């Protein structure tokens, strides 16, 4: 009889579906990459999974755990392909969703546009109900009236309903009453309730988040059902989890209730694998650096963990203009994203300066060197022209690049800038690296850390080709390029613990906190977390809980997260919290504010399951097929440009056969099918026992 022992990761992106399979004992990895099947992504994924298994004479029933992340839900929001959704609000406030915060995200643009509201005005209905600011019911909703309203909506074809009443973060009773009744009378309707989704103050953000959740709920449900049915039909009997934006795993049941917690699963996976490998390599503090085709993401990892942020923005009209999209309040790994990827287009801007990104050529037409009709030079064209990429070994040789196409595009752009093609190529590469370094520096400094302290963990298709230069600009000591940098995010799925966060707003000054209320709140939140972790198949002994408070000074409105001590809370515990808060405030803003009174806005509880065993989950040993012969790994030389040396012939090595323990002096290049690693003049590159490339960055 075959046992369920394999673990698998499945990442469905807009273009590619990535699969990773881990062998139970050896920890050996098997990968599979294929095109996504947009019409029915579950079909393609299942097919790919079966193929991958079949290649290794395995069956679905041998998979003990499948962990899944996808951008499908995010894309549905961007492309407005969700369900017909309705919204119930407090009387007088149905337009909140459309009015937003009334900010002009571009102050000089006379032609601003905003995303079309996900609920049209005719489907936004007002309920005669009111809660006071202190959470006292002032007018109770008439449930019969509400049902009659909803009846009309369903008759008009509405499939999903969001409920968001004023001050429901303080007292959810009215929302709860209405939701219970509607769920009973309209079982087919997907219902999202603001006090369940995100019980926090600020009605626009809460409404937008709840509406977004409702909007994609039927889609998530439908998609998961197809995937689950296909898995079961194929003989799968293991556990099935999804990756949350926060970096924790959750069950399909949770994904159906809170689909908006799953929008950024891929980036979260990337941060997790960086953290995981960093811990394994004795570098728990590092910068995760992920550069793909369209964007680059940087995420500071400290103590083996990324930070989480509480809000993100989806479906922006202008991808890199904050405020042009929909705010989503849900825990998300805290990272910065900038418009710098292999496909980023270089242009002369209106000031006559060389500008790179944020527009991207994408996959079609793609960079000029793809020969698919792209005429503007991109970062990939610059890399090719500089000699950093081999035109005959792109994607492992599956796609030949047109070096002359790149040169022509670079030359054309150079004519506007008075630069030759070499200067333009280096300019593009330099600007994109400087932009990423600048953004990473801000990200790190805002956490009051020194950018020179953190090694870079570089992955994504373009990360390894840029990381050493970015590290040099940051003053960072080292770059680590893990094995399989092109599918690192999917690997990250396999090192995530189950994790759920619950929160409640109870704004109060620190000295007037009602500790009985707080203690019973945490009891309640912990019960919820225990329940949901239990349903993920975890035993009591495997669960751990973190308690946090969002604090600020009375009179301010931006919070700082502070750890809450364990056990029963009392006035003594608050002294610890206040001390931690004041220290963090001084660290962040370089100002102490003695004499100001601290207060708490939100209380949060995270229930966390065990992290998959760090040592055994992966195979760190050298792969077979490796040899101790460095000469065999040498593929040849290529003429490349570095500003320190000018053009010169640079050795190119094949990563698959490069032995552990190798030590090479920069400049040097190491190729593998998904990416090329560049070490610059003065750097030294070595291969550690785990097969990771380690670049010691020369800071002279």
């Amino acid at each position: 009889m075959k046992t369920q022992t394999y673990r698998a990761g499945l990442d469905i992106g807009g273009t590619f579906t990535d699969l990773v399979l881990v062998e139970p004992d050896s920890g050996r990895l098997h990968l599979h990459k294929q095109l996504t099947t947009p019409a029915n992504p579950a079909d393609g994924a299942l097919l790919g999974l079966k193929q991958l298994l079949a290649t290794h004479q395995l069956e679905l029933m041998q998979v003990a755990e499948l962990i899944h992340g996808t951008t499908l839900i995010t894309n549905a929001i961007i492309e407005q392909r969700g369900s017909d959704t309705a919204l119930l609000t407090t009387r007088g406030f149905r337009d909140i969703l459309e009015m937003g915060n009334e900010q002009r995200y571009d102050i000089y643009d006379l032609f601003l546009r905003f995303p079309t509201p996900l609920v049209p005005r005719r489907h936004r209905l007002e309920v005669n109900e009111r809660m006071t600011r202190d959470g006292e019911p002032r007018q109770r909703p008439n449930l019969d009236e509400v049902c009659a309203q909803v009846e009309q909506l369903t008759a008009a074809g509405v499939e999903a309903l969001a409920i968001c009443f004023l001050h429901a973060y303080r007292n959810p009773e009215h929302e709860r009453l209405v939701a219970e009744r509607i769920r009973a009378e309209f079982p087919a309707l997907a219902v999202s309730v603001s006090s369940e989704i995100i019980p926090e103050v600020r009605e626009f953000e809460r409404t937008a988040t709840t509406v977004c959740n409702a909007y994609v709920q039927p889609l998530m449900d439908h998609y998961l059902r197809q995937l689950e049915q296909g898995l079961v039909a194929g003989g799968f009997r293991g556990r099935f989890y999804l990756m949350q934006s926060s970096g924790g795993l959750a069950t399909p049941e949770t994904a159906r209730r809170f689909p908006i917690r799953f929008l950024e699963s891929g980036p979260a996976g990337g941060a997790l694998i960086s953290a995981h490998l960093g811990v394994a390599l004795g570098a728990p503090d590092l910068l995760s650096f992920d550069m793909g085709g369209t964007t680059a993401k940087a995420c500071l990892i400290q103590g083996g963990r990324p930070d989480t942020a509480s809000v993100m923005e989806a479906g922006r009209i202008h991808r890199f203009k904050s405020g042009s999209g929909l705010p989503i309040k849900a825990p998300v790994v805290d990272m910065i994203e900038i418009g710098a990827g292999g496909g980023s287009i270089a242009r002369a801007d209106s000031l006559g300066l060389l500008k790179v990104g944020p527009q991207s050529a994408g996959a079609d037409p793609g960079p000029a060197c793809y020969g698919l009709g792209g005429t503007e030079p991109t970062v990939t064209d610059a890399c090719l022209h500089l000699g950093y990429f081999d035109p005959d070994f792109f994607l492992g040789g599956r796609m030949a690049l047109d070096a002359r196409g790149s040169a022509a595009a670079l030359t054309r752009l150079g004519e506007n800038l008075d630069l030759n093609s070499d200067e333009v190529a280096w300019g593009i590469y330099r600007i994109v690296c400087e932009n990423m370094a600048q953004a990473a520096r801000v990200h790190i400094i805002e956490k009051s850390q020194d950018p020179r302290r953190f090694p870079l963990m570089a992955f994504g298709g373009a990360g390894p080709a840029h990381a050493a230069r970015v590290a040099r600009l940051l003053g960072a000591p080292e770059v680590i390029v893990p094995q399989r940098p092109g599918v690192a995010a999917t690997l990250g799925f396999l090192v995530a613990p189950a994790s759920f966060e619950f929160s409640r707003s109870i704004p109060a000054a620190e000295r007037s906190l009602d500790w009985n209320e707080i203690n019973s709140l945490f009891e309640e939140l912990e019960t919820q977390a225990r329940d949901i972790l239990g349903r993920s198949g975890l035993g009591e002994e495997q669960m751990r809980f973190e308690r946090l408070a969002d604090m600020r000074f009375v009179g301010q409105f931006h919070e700082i997260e502070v750890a809450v001590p364990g056990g029963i809370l009392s006035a003594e515990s608050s002294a610890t919290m206040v001390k931690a808060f004041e220290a963090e405030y001084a660290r962040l803003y370089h100002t102490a504010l003695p004499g100001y009174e601290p207060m708490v806005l939100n209380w949060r509880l995270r229930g966390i399951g065990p992290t998959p065993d760090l040592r055994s989950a992966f195979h760190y040993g050298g792969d077979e097929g490796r040899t101790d012969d460095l000469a065999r790994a040498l593929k040849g030389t290529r003429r490349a440009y570095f500003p320190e040396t000018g053009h010169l012939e640079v050795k190119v090595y094949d990563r698959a056969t490069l032995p552990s323990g190798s030590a090479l002096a920069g400049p040097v290049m190491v190729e593998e099918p998904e990416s090329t690693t560049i070490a610059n003049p003065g750097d030294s590159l070595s291969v550690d026992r785990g097969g990771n490339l380690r670049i010691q960055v020369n800071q002279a």
Partner: protein
Amino acid sequence: MSGPGPDPVLTEVLRNAFASIAEQMNRTLIRTAHSPVIYEMHDCSVGLFDRSGLLLGQSSGLPIFLGNLEEGIHVVLRQSGEAGLEPGDVFILNDSYLLGTHLSDMTVVAPIFVAGKLVGFSVSRAHWRDVGGKDPGAVKTEDIYQEGLRLGPTRIVRGGEVVEEILDILQRNSRTPELLRGDLHAQLSAASVGERGLAELLTRYPLETLQAAAEEIFTHSEVLDREAVAAVPDGRYHAEGLLDDDGLGSEPVRIALAVEICGDEMFVDLSGSSPQVTGNINCGRAQTISGCRVAFKMLFHPDAPVTGGSFRPLHVSIPEGSIFDAREPAACQFYFTPLGLLIDLFIKALAPVLPERVAAAHFGDSMVVDFVRRRPTPAGGFFLMAEALAGGWGASASQEGESALINNVNGGFRNMPVEVAEAKFPIRIRRFSLRSGSGGAGRNRGGLGVVREYEVLEDSVAVTLHLDRSLTPGWGLAGGGDGLGPAAAAMEGGEWRPLTLKTNLFPLPRGARVRVETGGGGGYGEPEDG
């Protein structure tokens, strides 16, 4: 690889670095401020400047602040001279006649020294809740002395230490001394972020490189602006409109401008505008120039960054003692009301020759609504809940007008969430919605204004309104209709009665309601066209 001379690569790298420092300053200011008007509504702006006061980088913020932040540096330099500046100095100032703003906009100018050498300035401007004055929010003032404490360049920090005696003067003259202290500290934090950012940049690049790059950026901005102006047909273009009154019930106040294009130079002449008025809608010269720059930027390359080389072809001629050149003792509290109309008119004047770049007029004013408790009651001490309401924007040839957006002078402003307002003040908001039918008709319709209805939850509260643009609402273009103007009403004992649009401390008993409706944007094109 590049030879001597301008380097478009390094210059781009440094331009990004300057902008990034400004962005960090702004975020620090917003995150550490104590007044909701700053942290919630973002009534603030910051900029990073070179040692001669030319703009290196700015973040998004209030357009009319950003248009002329450098004036603060010039004023400080005029007073102290460069030699009079010491490391560790920080100045504050708010004089309406020097900076053009009202007194509650506090400008903080911090010279940046690296290794004992002046290398630049960080400047921030933020709206402080209260700097004194005869009434909270300073309505119906007739001279500047009624509007609060007036400061020329004042060293609030010397040798890196806050000068407590001066802070004490400020606090003793404010109804909200604690907020004042918190907001000052927030601006000082932003200044130190700017200082550290520039110092850090100087560890990587020598000052000469930075200056050369800055010069390069300025030159490019200037060329860009000149090319844009040169592309407009030479000629003299006019527009004019009326403000409802001066706030004290005067006759309508005329705002007129002529824009003359002469090659690559643009001359704006405001001589047709009203002389200085008795009420408090006078605007200092510095902010008048800022308003013209905002309009200029909306028409020409709105996506290109503003730099120290921007606006060089723009010349503004302001008659002395006019409403746009306030002189002592003119009252200036609502200086932004004529600017909102001026910006709309600037665009209207050029509409015939720039049809693709213009939109119909927007609702036009900051639509200020203040609820105040002036004297301590058993319920608590002084409070001032101040809001600027959004409205509809104008349609254009390419799209309908957007609804419910803040007006042109305020830009990056955000509204106060209902739940935040209710949690902080004894006010219940009963309705906050779009105002149906308020947008101008047209082939593309104007955006909608908003309706905000308040209920007062205790006695001793009064309301103040400053709403303009009923005589000159958001006008249509190319045959499009006008949007509705603003409206206000109060309900006591079950009956709605209209309120005057400029209402000063109208007392409200507990349970009374106030409803404010803002205007819509103008439509574009004949409605029949489709």
